[in-house]
């Protein structure tokens, strides 16, 4: 793995940590601070800072540092949380997220010193003191680190002589240290002579393996500074008695010392001492007894217990989530694709068995049924792999609310419900944009300003509730605000001004509410423009429909509005309505079909030269001749026969698809045309039916929108034929 790959990992991880951060802060906001949550958000910022440091993203490090310090204050005292500070922390999340983006793109980060300063003020962190502490810390650490680099130059020529006294405490050994490693390190900066004092060593029968009996006196001849020698023992600080003094000159002592090389060799000859805990004293001369008690593997009962058994260890064990693995989504996609093939194949097999005339109780058929059950189970398990909770998208919405609040000066809080509801990732990806716009609209148009709210007897802070739940094989997402509700008079007036409805139209409340979805009601046309406010709800509706979903609105004046979206759980399979038209088998998503009926001669009216509408109850719905539209057939001569499917889709809402007959309803596996052939207008995808036949899945939105356009007739015929 290259550094570039690790960088990718870093940014992927940043995204995870940002979502943890949002989640955590949100939890604190809704249910007050608790230590676990604060710790987890602290860790998130801390990790971002750590990784950013590794890659030298300095702006990211410095902002994360301030952020981390603020969180540290809360971590140490939960009562430090207040509304103003929470608000700052939430804003910091947004800024942090921006700095991550700019770091990734390699562009300059926006100036965040203002917010950093606010954080410092609000949390009572004095920037000066902070720096000082940093400096202290640096002074504390720098020598070791610098030395490590500089130590390379071995065998420094004779210079000053230092006398080093080293008496380890027993605790030194317990921390995995070994005196010889310090001596080795010393040998890197100068010539070392070592003398071991084993005078305190008891007889073998009294020897306790956990005690420290040995002392060393070393002479180091080096040109380095005294501090550098002390730095070698930095990690032994507090675990030994260390003295370092400079002596008169080189070589004035050391006659009875042991040369370090001999000393090391001696140790090399006796490596097993570490394992055996057997100290063979006789092998050593009287004056230079060296023992490797340091890492002797000692009898366990004697291992000292660290102070304070931590009761938290038990408690935390329960919280461990089940292990997860990360898999490239391509692999899962392939699996899902193969799963689709299997489902199709299994359906074909079942059909062949039926044709071969097996009775329904025949053993072969029973075995096939078994296979069918298994296939279905595998299918749902495989789909579950790609299912993700909607939480990350939901969490992003709290930022949206904050931004709109900041832009409009309103106060609103986002509450979440059912954020762990799972849905296929492909659906989640498509959900973000429409949700963003609906949330924006809810705050911008729904929630009133604080004074109006107070006057109406509502709390000053508005609430937008975002919730998700599963309902009959689909996911329902609701956005509910406690604002003013839809101002029907204004909506109606605007619709009349824009020529969407005629001034004398009779409209129910519900009809008026639904006008906000009408094309041209709002001026902005594109949904990709996230920064621009007031994107049309018609665009929102279209993007939900593109996901195979539907959106409804209900509003109570003075009490608020509820937008409810219903979406399929996956985009890999589809509940299809199988229809026949001009000899072709076609599939329509069941979700877009509102009703079906048989055409009766009296219901069809001709408008203009070629347009026909059908009267359904009291509405006129344009008839779309699917065969003609796709170029399968010429214009029908007889509009009094056939079946119509009233579909909802496109900008204009309704259309009555005219087909020869309805074959049935079936779950179909979606096969992309785009990736296997090319994009075909009016066709969303293709599928393979149980009988092995290929069928095209209609793009209902496109057909409704483009009903007057001349389609690429020949093209379609060549694929379908």
């Amino acid at each position, binding site marked *: *793995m290259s*550094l570039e*790959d*690790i960088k990718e*990992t*870093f940014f*992927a*991880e940043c995204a995870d940590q940002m979502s943890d951060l949002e989640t955590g802060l949100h939890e604190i906001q809704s249910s007050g601070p608790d230590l676990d949550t604060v*710790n*987890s958000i*602290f*860790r998130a910022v*801390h*990790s971002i*800072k*750590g*990784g950013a*440091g*590794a890659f*030298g993203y300095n702006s990211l490090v410095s902002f994360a540092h301030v952020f981390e310090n603020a969180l540290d204050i809360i971590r140490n005292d939960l009562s430090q949380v207040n509304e103003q500070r929470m608000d700052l922390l939430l804003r910091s999340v947004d800024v942090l997220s921006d700095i991550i983006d700019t770091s990734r793109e390699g562009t300059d980060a926006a100036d965040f010193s203002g917010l950093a300063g606010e954080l410092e003020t609000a949390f009572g962190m004095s920037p000066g003191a902070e720096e000082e*502490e*940093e400096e*202290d*810390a*640096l002074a*504390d*650490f720098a020598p070791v*680190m610098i030395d*490590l*680099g500089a130590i390379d130059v071995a065998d420094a020529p004779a210079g000053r002589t230092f006398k080093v006294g080293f008496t380890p405490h027993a605790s030194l*050994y*317990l*921390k*995995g*240290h*070994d005196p010889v*490693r310090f001596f080795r*390190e010393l040998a890197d900066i100068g010539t070392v002579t070592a003398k071991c004092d084993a005078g305190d060593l008891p007889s073998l029968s009294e020897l306790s393996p956990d005690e420290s009996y040995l002392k060393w006196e070393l002479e180091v001849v080096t040109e380095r500074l005294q501090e550098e020698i002390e730095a070698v023992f*930095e*990690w032994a600080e*507090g*675990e030994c008695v260390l003295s370092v003094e400079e002596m008169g000159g080189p070589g004035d002592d050391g006659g009875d010392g042991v040369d370090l090389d001999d000393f090391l060799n001696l140790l090399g000859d006796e490596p097993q001492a*570490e394992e055996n805990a057997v100290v063979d004293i006789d092998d050593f001369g009287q004056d230079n007894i060296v023992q490797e008690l*340091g*890492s*002797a*593997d*000692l*009898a*366990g009962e004697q*291992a000292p*217990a*660290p*102070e304070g058994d*931590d009761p*938290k*260890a038990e408690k*935390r*064990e329960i919280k*461990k989530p089940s292990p997860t693995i990360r898999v490239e989504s391509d692999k899962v996609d392939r699996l899902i694709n193969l799963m689709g093939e299997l489902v199709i194949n299994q359906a074909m097999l079942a059909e062949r068995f039926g044709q071969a005339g097996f009775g329904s109780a025949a053993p072969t058929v029973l075995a096939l049924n078994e296979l069918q059950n298994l296939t279905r189970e595998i299918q749902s398990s495989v789909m579950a792999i790609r299912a993700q909770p909607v939480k990350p998208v939901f969490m992003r919405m709290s930022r949206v609310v904050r931004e709109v609040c900041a832009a409009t000066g309103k106060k609103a809080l986002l509450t979440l419900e059912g954020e762990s509801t799972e849905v296929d990732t492909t659906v989640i990806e498509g959900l973000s944009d429409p949700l963003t716009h609906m949330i924006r609209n809810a705050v911008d148009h729904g929630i009133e300003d604080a004074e109006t709210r107070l006057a109406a007897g509502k709390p000053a802070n508005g609430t937008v509730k975002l919730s998700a739940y599963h309902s009959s094989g689909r996911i329902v997402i609701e956005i509910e605000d406690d604002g003013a509700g839809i101002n029907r008079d204004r909506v109606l007036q605007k619709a009349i001004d824009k020529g969407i409805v005629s001034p004398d139209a009779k409209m129910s409340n519900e009809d008026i509410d639904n006008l906000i979805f009408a094309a041209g009601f709002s001026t902005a046309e594109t949904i990709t423009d996230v920064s621009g406010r007031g994107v049309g709800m018609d665009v929102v509706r279209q993007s939900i429909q593109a996901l195979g979903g539907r959106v409804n609105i209900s509003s109570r004046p003075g009490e608020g509005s509820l937008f409810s979206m219903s979406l399929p759980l996956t985009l890999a399979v589809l509940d299809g309505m199988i229809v026949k038209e001009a000899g072709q088998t076609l599939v329509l998503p069941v979700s877009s079909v509102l009703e079906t009926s048989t055409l009766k001669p009296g219901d069809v009216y001709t408008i203009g030269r070629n347009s026909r509408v059908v009267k359904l109850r009291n509405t006129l719905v344009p008839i779309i001749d699917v065969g003609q539209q796709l170029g399968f057939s010429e214009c029908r001569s007889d509009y009094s026969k056939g079946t119509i499917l009233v579909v909802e889709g496109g900008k204009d809402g309704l259309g009555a698809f005219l087909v020869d007959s309805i074959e049935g309803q079936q779950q179909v596996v979606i096969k992309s045309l785009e990736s296997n052939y090319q994009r075909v207008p009016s066709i969303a995808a293709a599928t393979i039916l149980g009988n092995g036949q290929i069928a095209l899945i209609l793009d209902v939105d496109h057909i409704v929108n483009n009903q007057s356009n001349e389609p690429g007739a020949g093209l379609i015929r060549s694929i379908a034929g």
Partner: protein
Amino acid sequence: MLKKILTVDDSRTMREMLRHCLAGAGFEVVTAEDGKDGIEKLRETQPDVVITDINMPVMDGFEFIENVRQLNEYSRVPILVLTTESAPEKKQRAQSAGATGWIVKPFDPEKLTKAVNRVMP
């Protein structure tokens, strides 16, 4: 046989970074995601040196070190603490939990291998 190092860090980035640096320096690297995972991996892999982060979910670095020091067979394994927290009390706490030494983040491969070699048995 390659010397084996167990790294314990909850950040994927850090784990990959450590692996990258240490494998490049000729060590065999085993990774764990938190202290609890670390204890399990320790038993499985019997490393020569352990490097651990402090701030981790489930079981943090301090607790991990304390636990390792209580295990008979590994009580003397050198443990280096990886920390961005340069506050002296953090180091002290790590030391009193039983850490052998520490490395301050950010680190470069050279600095890291030097530190590892300082404690490598």
